[in-house]
């Protein structure tokens, strides 16, 4: 059974996400309630996918994503941000940080499950191609 780590400082939201993910019944869900605890859980649990809130104590979601993407041991873990921050700027910061998908709250369980299935299929080569594409489209050109 695939393991999904949910990192969110709001226990009610964590329970909602657990409920949504368990609708499919295909995942073992583990949780953390701030960014640093989430990082600890990544190392301890070695999840197949991580769902990350942005606004959290100790380490925010963007920092957590960069932290995981910057280390060869964790750089290819599928990462989804699920956040109440809905501005285009927020989503762009998430994508530039290295997240595989950015969903906004309130969320539909079906959309979350579809996103999990989608990011679980990504290969390291897919991820590198996406990053190269972002560089080509977003970085500063002459």
């Amino acid at each position, binding site marked *: 059974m695939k393991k999904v780590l949910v990192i969110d400082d709001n226990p009610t939201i964590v329970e909602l996400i657990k409920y949504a993910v368990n609708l499919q019944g295909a995942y073992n869900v583990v949780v953390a309630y701030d960014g640093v605890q989430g990082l600890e859980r990544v190392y301890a649990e070695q999840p197949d996918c991580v769902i990350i809130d942005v606004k959290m104590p100790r380490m925010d979601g963007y920092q957590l994503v*960069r932290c995981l993407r*910057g280390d*060869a*041991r964790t750089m290819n873990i599928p990462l989804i941000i699920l956040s109440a921050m809905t501005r*285009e700027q927020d989503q762009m910061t998430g994508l530039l940080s290295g997240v595989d998908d950015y969903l906004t709250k309130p969320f539909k369980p079906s959309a979350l499950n579809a996103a999990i299935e989608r990011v679980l299929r990504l290969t390291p080569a897919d991820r590198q191609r996406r990053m190269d594409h*972002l560089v*080509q489209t977003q970085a500063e*050109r002459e």
Partner: protein
Amino acid sequence: MQQFRKLYILLVDSDPGACYRIQQALGEGFVLRNATSLAEAKQCLADSLPDMLISEVRIGQESGLELCRFVRLTPSLRFLPVMLLTSHATLQDKVAGFDAGADDYVVKPYDARHLVARIRLLSRMKRFEQNPD
């Protein structure tokens, strides 16, 4: 292939071998200036503002985290993108790096293509944060 503006990087690392390897990894899209101590790094920052600061966590007997804090507390440098590129890889190291004000934390050894992309994206992200339009 798109042509990108050359980014001016201040690289702070006391190990000449590491500096050489980073220079080789980055290739020709970057202009690198190297500093091997905090004092030298601060002098470089006073001379000219780079597009990005990349620092080791341990610079000889000195701390790259102290340099991060200096950057964040200096008004003219506050928005400078800072990446820690380091062999210090524990969870505590990473938390301390972000607490000190680093924007990104990359653990050695690194893949050259991945590093180049991260530098370009971090530069874009910081500019986007300052000027979303």
